[in-house]
């Protein structure tokens, strides 16, 4: 079994798509309360790895263990109910619903579980959940947009709202897939500030990122992925100084 302070253990995971060996021999240990960044050039298998962790893709071999529970083979909603939330590369939100409802829905999932037949209860009587959602929107600085349709938000705001949707569930593990992709410098900086703010709450985070500025301002530990393999693993300073990384990633991609 994993060591007591390792909350997520990706054990000997392989993933093949036909002839392509997208992930090879991945062994990754994420420690509780830490921000663990996974970086690597395009096509290194970062998103595939995240999809394997969250149950969107089954691994060809190996397994993912979260706090003693094997995640492999479970459905996304079961994995979420165990306390894992995910922010997507392109925000996955309820575009036809208001911002407030977008944030209330995950709070209800946390309180009521994966299915509740409460069809004769009025949504307006959910004052506790509503207050919680409003509080969360205040936290991410979006309370003035709570009645807007989520689909009409700017990309940066969609991302912030998606983050609020994850945070309101108080997940034990938060997975972030390129949280600043396609954002302006200003939006990127506000997102970094927000992520730093939630860092103090002791939540474990796995973050996939392209932007070195983001990675080095947030991560406690970095794993470097190249061609489906982990080529380096360590603190930001270790990784920055590692010649293999500079060759495969920093030198190659930039």
């Amino acid at each position: 079994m994993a060591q007591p302070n390792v909350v997520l253990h990706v054990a000997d995971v392989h993933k093949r798509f036909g002839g392509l060996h997208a992930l090879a021999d991945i062994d990754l240990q994420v420690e509780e309360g830490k921000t663990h960044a996974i970086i690597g050039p395009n096509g290194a298998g970062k998103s595939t790895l995240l999809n394997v962790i969250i149950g969107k893709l089954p691994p060809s071999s190996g397994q993912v263990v979260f706090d003693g529970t094997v995640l492999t083979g479970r459905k996304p909603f079961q994995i979420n109910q165990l306390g894992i939330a995910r922010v997507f590369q392109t925000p996955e939100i309820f575009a036809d619903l208001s911002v407030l409802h977008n944030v209330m829905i995950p709070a209800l999932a946390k309180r009521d579980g994966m299915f509740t037949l409460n069809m004769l209860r009025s949504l307006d009587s959910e004052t506790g959940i509503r207050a919680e959602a409003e509080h969360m929107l205040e936290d991410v600085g979006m309370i003035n947009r709570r009645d807007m349709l989520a689909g009409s938000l700017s990309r940066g705001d969609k991302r912030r709202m998606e983050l609020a949707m994850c945070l309101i569930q108080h997940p034990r593990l938060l997975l972030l897939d390129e949280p600043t992709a396609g954002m302006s410098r200003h939006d990127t900086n506000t997102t970094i500030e927000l992520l730093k703010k939630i860092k103090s709450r002791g939540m474990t985070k796995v973050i996939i990122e392209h932007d070195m500025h983001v990675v080095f301002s947030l991560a406690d530990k970095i794993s470097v992925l190249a061609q489906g393999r982990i080529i380096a693993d360590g603190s930001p300073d270790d990784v920055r100084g590692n010649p293999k990384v500079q060759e495969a990633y920093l030198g190659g991609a930039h």
Partner: protein
Amino acid sequence: MNNLMPRNDLFLLLGFTAVVLTMPIWLAPFGAGYPDLLQRFMIFGIFAVGFNILFGLTGYLSFGHAAFFGVGSYAAVWSFKLLTLDAIPAMIFAVLISGLFALLIGFLCLRRSGIYFSILTLAFAQMSYNLAYSVLTPITNGETGLQLTINDPRVLDAAMGQGFAGQPVPTLLGQQMSGYAGFYFCAGFLILSFFIAQRIAGSPFGMMLKAIKSNQTRMQFTGFNTRPYALSAFVISGMYAGLAGALLAVTDPLAGAERMQWTASGEVVLMTILGGVGTLVGPVIGAWIIKYFENILSALNDNILARFWSFLPDGVADVVVKVTSKFVGDGWHLTLGLVFVIIVIFLPGGIMEGVRRLAALFRRSGSSSAKPSARTQPAE
């Protein structure tokens, strides 16, 4: 805002009730104020309200809901034949049976979504139709249709010593369900159905259905098992269809297989889109318009048209009568098709979108000094 029912919802319900109950008065000038047609307005209104819970809220387009409508009719007629002529047991029986049937069909069809779901529902409904028409003749009486006879057992009625002279007809506590009594009976169920749909739409459960329509992936990654939600919506709308089918059997106790045909399934889709998908009132209005066209336009003939256009000069009148006659009588489908095309092109949100646009226009011209508010419109 923390009342049991939000004020806007209450006003909508009261307004809807008033409109429905006064229909015999305000529809009379349009030639539609007679009980047979009014009953149909109520029955297909219920069908459409229920269909909208699945299609409008959850986003699953079923092409087979007529199957549940038909099952409701058959179940009600069997209740009249075997148990009692009273309408209430028949309704309960019909709603339960159609709900069970919907549970089975929904369980199978909801393994797929999008177009594959639609095709599966269509396939099951056509299967049900063909079974009702041929193999299941002992239950459905095939082509002739299931009807009441003097020799039916009616065990409950017999036990209570109620005999019947002549052709048996459904009753409510001994009262015959024909004419306006039948209309008010159906109207009561339409208002109840509307109220329940309103509660569902305004509940956390209803919000989950809308969220499934909006982004199923996000729902799953948010910790919801979406299938039981979609299945519940499917069963509820199937029960609504069964209720509507049972009411049709109450007002006219003859159940035929053609009620389950795909054209009947398509009709409720048209009603919902015409009125406004996802709105509460829209599907009811859509149902009323289609049933009005079906019954009123199809009854018009050349003589009536000639009288209507008689103010025109002779030669012109002949031409106009000739042209307009293509759109009425047997050609009423042409008119319906044109109206449908125009609505879908210019008002994709159906008639309710037109109403909303008009309301916004009036509000702007009415209070031009006040700034137009930027807040979002609440969904009906």
